[in-house]
């Protein structure tokens, strides 16, 4: 399982990376915004995308939309991990086709639960 972690703060990327490693996901890469993430996704055979929303350059929501609009990436599971907690934003993310939404600050258990849920649902639909 190859995972791309996108966040403009390197500390947050490290935290997520460590939590994922603890959950048994060792193959992770990092990008600091949508603009760097998108080409990585397009050429990198990633199985899962964990992204922040608020980033300079391309924001997470636009990255999500770009992923859904890309034929090859359209089915990539995407988890938003963000401090944005407004109702309209969550609705927007849902409409854009997000697979999970975690609000910061979060804990390891929440991240684990959301990731497991995403994969359960994907397996069930296959």
């Amino acid at each position, binding site marked *: 399982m190859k995972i791309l972690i996108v966040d403009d703060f390197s500390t947050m990327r*490290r935290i997520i990376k460590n939590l994922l490693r603890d959950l048994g996901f060792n193959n992770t890469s990092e990008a600091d915004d949508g603009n760097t993430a998108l080409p990585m996704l397009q050429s990198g055979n990633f199985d899962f995308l964990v992204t922040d929303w*608020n980033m300079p350059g391309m924001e997470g929501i636009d990255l999500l939309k770009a992923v859904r609009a890309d034929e090859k990436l359209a089915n990539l599971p995407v988890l938003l991990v963000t401090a944005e907690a407004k109702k309209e934003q969550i609705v927007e993310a849902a409409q854009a086709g997000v697979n999970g*939404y975690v609000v910061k600050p979060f804990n390891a258990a929440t991240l684990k639960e959301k990731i497991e849920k995403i994969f359960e649902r994907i397996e069930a639909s296959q």
Partner: protein
Amino acid sequence: MAFSESILSEQCLVQARGLVSSIENGCEDAAIGHLREISRINETKMFQEIGRLTRELHDTLVGFGIETDISDLAEHEIPDARERLNHVIKVTDQAAHKTLTAVEDAIPVCRELEESASKIEDQWKRFISRDLSADEFRELSREIGEHLEVSSDRYSKIKAYLNDILMAQDFQDITGQIIRRVIGLVQDVEDKLIGLIKISGSFGNDDNRLERKPAEKVLEGPQVPGKESATALKNQDEVDDLLSSLGF
């Protein structure tokens, strides 16, 4: 206003009477002279009044510390605050990385101890239930010896990592002080702006206030306690509820 009353002064009355009689008597030069005198009186009063207002404004500005401070604020203190806040970002970033590095280094050490202890434990249980052969017991003794030998070294390593984590928290003190100073500066700017608004006379006058346009689609970032936005959800549970109501 004081200078508008000057037209009602004794001096003006004298000139006005002179003007009327000059006109009645057909003395044009005298009439013009009286008219000039009236406007001179008026202008003098007006200039005096403007002078007084200017002085008042100056005194008020000085009183608010605006005249001297406001350029200082713009030139030095605000760029200074920006640097300080950037420093806060740098210091917290360093602290987070120091902490994360210590955690990343400590976890494999813990895992090593955990694995070796659990291996010994399994064998120990077999030993208790008299399930162990003599050879296996010798192997177990060797493993216990080895485990004890590395343990003290590994525990002091973990202790050192924990100490790194402890020391990395010193940023709180530094950033707390810096942020407190910036809060003070913001307060200062606020007070001075209020002073300026009061001087300009439009304070409390809604018509003159700049209309605040609600920023559209601006991301809010983390919700600050006590300042939550009206549509912000409080926690992950509320987010989950909303998502499930949307069919997630």
